[in-house]
């Protein structure tokens, strides 16, 4: 009887086994990341990506979430509207549980509604526009908003620099951030007795005439120059400023506080003051471990993009683990209270906004030195 039946079973077994073999053993948990990996703010985007990768790698090394590995799906928005839309669509199609990013406010304004359409949560590490503050929506952030940063900077400047007359320029390429920041700053600085005497808008591109911009800023004869722009532009502007008006105080925004600023600025950015997302000299053990891992993996030190993104990613993954897959992720994030961060705990309010410590730093000898 066995002989009679055996061939039959064998026949059935072969395709069965083949199919079984082809099956995935476990479905990974997909998390999306979107940021400007190419384009003029690629340093920030890449830094953020690295932070996210590191967070995912660390969680996977610890066994994943409930034994499922985490997979990061990385999309580039190229700091471009169409690219961003497509990126979100692709992430949605890839069935990610949430999106980390974007890194810039303008991109966030574009991405958020699309993500909302697909029911996806967005946790941004570095988007600070106040337009997204205090809204009960699918957008969360792990850093303070521009109100906080601009206010902080305004106060510091008022306290340390007296009442200065500042000329500012802003990059309309990231308008949602730069305009928002400058408006707040202008408001607060005025309240502190300062004044914004000039305001030059430009749109960053390869053909940007930085010299012309500085020239225009100088026409209002300011005491200092405020650059509300990215690291690349700030570096070039600093060059021009040093060339055209070497004695003027230069101030930049936290958006430009990447390593590239120093690399590209060189001596021109010495003495530049700007607010920071984080303290590069922090001795927090978590941060030190993170920094070491980052350096090992990526060959350079992490910037604020990497640090903030790491926090955002790690928090998301922790929430995923706690949610058990069936609770509303946002609710979990908001109601859990506190998540461990690298330098400080991450805490969401009921709108998904967070408070992050703000540091004021100055570039000295090619390094950021925190002064407040």
């Amino acid at each position, binding site marked *: 009887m066995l002989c009679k039946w055996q*061939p039959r079973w*064998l026949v059935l077994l*072969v395709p069965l086994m083949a199919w079984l073999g082809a099956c995935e053993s476990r479905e990974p948990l997909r998390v999306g990341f979107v940021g400007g990996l190419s384009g003029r703010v690629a340093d920030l985007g890449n830094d953020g990506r690295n932070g996210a990768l590191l967070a995912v790698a660390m969680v996977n090394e610890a066994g994943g979430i409930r034994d499922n590995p985490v997979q990061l799906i990385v999309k580039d928005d190229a700091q471009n509207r169409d690219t961003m839309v497509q990126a979100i669509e692709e992430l949605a199609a890839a069935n990610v549980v949430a999106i980390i990013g974007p890194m810039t406010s303008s991109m966030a304004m574009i991405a958020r509604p699309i993500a909302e359409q697909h029911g996806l949560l967005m946790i941004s590490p570095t988007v600070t526009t106040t337009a997204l503050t205090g809204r009960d929506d699918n957008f969360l952030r792990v850093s303070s908003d521009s109100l906080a940063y601009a206010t902080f900077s305004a106060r510091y400047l008022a306290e340390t620099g007296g009442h200065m007359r500042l000329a500012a320029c802003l990059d309309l390429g990231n308008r949602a951030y730069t305009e928002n920041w400058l408006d707040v700053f202008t408001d607060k600085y005025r309240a502190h007795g300062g004044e914004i005497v000039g305001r030059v808008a430009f749109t960053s591109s390869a053909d940007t005439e930085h010299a012309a911009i500085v020239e225009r800023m100088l026409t209002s004869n300011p005491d200092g120059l405020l650059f509300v722009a990215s690291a*690349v532009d700030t570096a*070039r502007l600093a*060059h021009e400023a040093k060339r055209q008006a070497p004695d003027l105080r230069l101030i930049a925004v936290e958006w430009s506080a990447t390593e590239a600023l120093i*690399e*590209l600025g*060189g001596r021109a950015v010495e003495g530049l003051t700007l607010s920071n997302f984080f303290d590069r000299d922090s001795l927090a053990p978590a941060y030190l471990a993170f920094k070491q891992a980052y350096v090992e993996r990526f060959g350079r030190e992490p910037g604020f993009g990497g640090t903030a993104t790491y926090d955002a990613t790690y928090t998301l993954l922790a929430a995923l683990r706690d949610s058990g897959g069936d609770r509303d992720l946002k609710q979990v994030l908001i109601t859990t209270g506190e998540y461990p961060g690298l330098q400080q705990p991450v805490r969401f309010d009921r709108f998904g906004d967070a408070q992050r410590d703000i540091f004021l730093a100055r570039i000295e000898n090619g390094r950021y030195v925190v002064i407040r």
Partner: protein
Amino acid sequence: MPRWRLRTFLILLLFATTLATFSMVSLGLLAYRLPQIKRDAAQDAQLTARNVSDLLENAVSALQIQLRPAVLLGDQLGVQRIGKLFGSILNEEGFQAIYRVDKRGIVQASSSGDGNVVNQNRLVGADLSGNPLFKAALHSDHPLWSDRYLSALRGELTIAVAYPSNDQVLIAEMTTGRLRDIVLRSLVPIKHQVFVVDGHGEWVADNLPDGNLRHTHWGAHAIVTAARSGGPSPEVIELNGRSFHPAYHRSEKLGWVVISMIPSGLDNPDQARTIFLVSLGMVASGLISLLMAPIWASAIQRPLRSLIRQSRLISRGDYSGSWQPNRIIEIDELGNDLRRMARAIGERESSLEKNEKYLLELFNIAPNAMLISRSVDEDYAVLDVNQAWVELFGYSRDSVVGQNGKVLNWWRHLEDRRKLLRGLEEWGQVTGYEAWMLNAVGDEILCSISAASVTRETERQVIFVYVDITDMRKMQRELDSMNQELERLVAARTEELQRSNRDLEETLESLSVAQGELVRSEKLAALGELVAGIAHELNTPIGNAGITLSTLEDHIKAFRDLVSLGLKRSALDQFVENVDSASHIALRNIQRASDMVATFKQVAADRASSQRRTFDAKELVEELSLILQPMLKRTPYKLRTDAPGEIELDSYPGPLSQVLTNLVNNAVMHGLEGRDRGTVRVLVEEAAGDQVRFIVSDDGIGMPEDVQSRMFDPFFTTRLGSGGTGLGLHILHNIVTNVLGGRVEFSSAPGAGTEFRITIPARAPFPKDTDQQEPMSQSR
């Protein structure tokens, strides 16, 4: 349990076998081929990586060659001129920005643009001292390619090459996009998928269809870490859900890693093809086997079907049919066996039929009336009756089949039927139950019914045997009455006979008395005769003696006379002789007389007074001879004796010699009478049974029949009045039988002589009616 048609089963079996065979072969093939493909793929990938690395280096070298004029002349030309030179080098397919940086990091001259549009010296004065490429170039003496970084000049991700020289560094940049295009152009002939990462694991370029790879960081990827450490590349990596066999080659010049990938698994065309072909083969073989299987199934089925047909016929009872020889040995054998079996069954059946017929015939011709019925619904129904039954009861066979006795009213008393059937049910059989039955015309028949039942299959059948005993009963009754009559007669006759018997007994008794009296009177007469005889007998010797003595007297007288005259010697001798002789004769005669008296005494006397002793036969015979010789001397006859010695007897010698004497006398007197010569023989011999035989024979005239028959009767003599009392042989017989315990035999025929045989036991019996002791106590 599922059941299949043979055809279906065979088809499935063949199909499954083919499939299984092909599967196993395929698996084997795959097991052999797939690893081979993998190995080849790995090798291929390795080769490709190497090639691409070389191609890249070539491309990069080509790019670098573009810079040669700037490199060579860089030191010598002034800012303006060098700027122009830079501008001329820039082209659509090459560097997009070139600048010269002094040792401090300050840009001295720069040129950037895309072919037509060239921005000169835009960057002059910029401080690139923080630029890692610049910093690295300061310490290098050969051209260095940078990692990906953000260009100050262009604000895009850039790759740059730095040419250090004595006091300056020439840096030429191009966007990663352009580099990618350049690399892609080199990769066009490469059929495999390739991507390039820089020293940090950041993507540089690839020839993959989608751009997903470029944003991922590769530094931690297994293949890149392997490349960095120089270890073996992993066998399989996954990209975008597909798996590949990777190989890497590190370009020392660029510090970049070229990773080429050959799809593995089903993405690999070779593998896919192999698997496809194998699957196709399997499917094809499956289909072919499905198509062919029915044919093969038929091939097997045909002979089986003929077998089945055969057996079907046989099961239906058709034993005819033949078997065609078949190619397959087993089937052929089976067919033949079936054939044989069918024949055997047929023969058996026909013999069974014959048997049945025979049994039926037997049943029918059985001389006893028999009926077979079967039980049906609590009652019985006739199955069959035999001829004898029909004749006995007068019903036809057809009229009774299916009916029973109650219905057809055979039974005089239904009670009998009930009893019979009950008995049958209780004991299973009944023997000799007598009941009155009615035949077809209403006559009464007395039947002795025996029945036995048997269960045949599920039916209970009973066989009844009817024996018509009506006549027999009648005869029996007659016989009985005759017997009774006979008995009565016999009784009567017996009574008569008894009466006669009684009468006879009485008569007998009186006869016996008369006989006794007669005997007594005879005896008396005999005795008288005997006495007369004795007297007569005695008279002879005594007379003789008297005569002799009177003679003697005469002689004496004479002698006296003589004496007176004068005695002569001769006269004296004569006288003495005469006296002697006379006395002798007288003595003898007296002795004879005495013996006779003794003998006569013996006839009546108590035999017990005879003397018994042991003696030798020979002696006795010699004594006898002695006694008898004198008598025989005067006759012409001789007496011969022959007795072997040492025959001892414990008996009565006296009577014995008397017997022998008697016999000799008889022989002389009767047997040899009138003859002028003759011999009397006396023989003694031992006889069987410890007996001794004395034979006295003569060669005389013998005895006629009538004499022989009466010889031993008392007082029978052939010469009455002439010397015989007739008692001699009687007495002799008595003596031999009673005293000596033996028997007398004789044989005689006229003219042939006579022979008497006296056979006696060596030890004579003791007389029974005496008061003597038992013989054992007697000493011999």
